[in-house]
């Protein structure tokens, strides 16, 4: 049996979910997790024209749940680290390619930020 407070909480969360499901289009992508190397193709608008750009890097984390979930990817642009956060259900996302599955022990690999060169390598997961 749920207490009254729990029941109120249930209905509230249901209505939020209802809004999310009704007004946010969800997208289908291959599953990926922290440590994987992925390429994200997304559309950008330059004035009138739209074109597709890609961003390839390591996934640092997946954050949040449901329709508001986001993921962070990091790449090295020359010597400078660049990170981008994408909402999973962003309409401008075209596709995601998983290039490499990485073997990591945690869900959020922020220690990658301090690492460069040899120590920044992530072991590939096989099978």
């Amino acid at each position: 049996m749920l207490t009254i407070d729990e029941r109120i909480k249930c209905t509230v969360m249901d209505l939020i979910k209802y809004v999310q499901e009704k007004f946010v289009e969800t997208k289908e992508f291959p599953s990926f997790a922290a440590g994987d190397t992925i390429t994200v193709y997304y559309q950008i608008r330059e004035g009138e024209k739209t074109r597709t750009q890609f961003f390839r890097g390591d996934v640092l984390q997946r954050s949040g749940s449901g329709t508001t979930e986001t993921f962070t990817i990091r790449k090295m642009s020359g010597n400078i680290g660049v990170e981008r956060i994408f909402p999973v259900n962003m309409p401008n996302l075209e596709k995601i390619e998983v290039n490499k599955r990485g073997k990591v022990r945690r869900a959020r690999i922020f220690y990658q930020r301090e690492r460069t060169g040899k120590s920044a390598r992530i072991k590939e997961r096989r099978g």
Partner: protein
Amino acid sequence: MPGLIGKKIGMTSIFDADGKNQPCTVIELGPCVVTQLKTEDVDGYAAVQIGFGDQKNPVQAAAGHANKANTTAKKKYVEFKDFAEGAVSLGDVLTVEMFEEGEFVDIVGTTKGKGFQGVVRRHGFAGVGQSTHGQHNRLRAPGSIGAGSDPSRVFKGTRMGGRMGVDRVKIQNLQVLKIDTEQNLLVVKGSVPGAKQSLVIVEK
């Protein structure tokens, strides 16, 4: 301004037509019932009283008042002055369809209580002096609260620490992003004062 009473459900985010991620608040708005029409002759002023939500154990007086409009006693009653004349009659049910997507609304709510707060949090004072160079324990102090023997008292309204929050606040010009008539939901851009489950008034 005509309006409706609703309940704050919570916040989420949705994507608009340009693909932008918009933070939004979900409000369960109505259905509200017109419970009384106040007139110049009888009450001295013209207004429309509407009610929202059901009372659990209404006293007879409340039930009797609601009975005139053929409904049950309501949790919250609000009067609105600017409903168009003759647009509504006693017992009418007003729903979220009153509003349109894209229009701008004002929302009244009661802010969350913050408890007893000092002047830095409550009034935005900067505190006194420095945090280094040997200074101590004046960092969040209010400073002087007035002159000495003349006037020999502290003026009324001097800003000091005290209870903060639980204020009636109106946020103006919130854009309506989405409307859902099945569940009586209104989705507005941005935040709305108050806790989840608290009652809010949405004005057109």
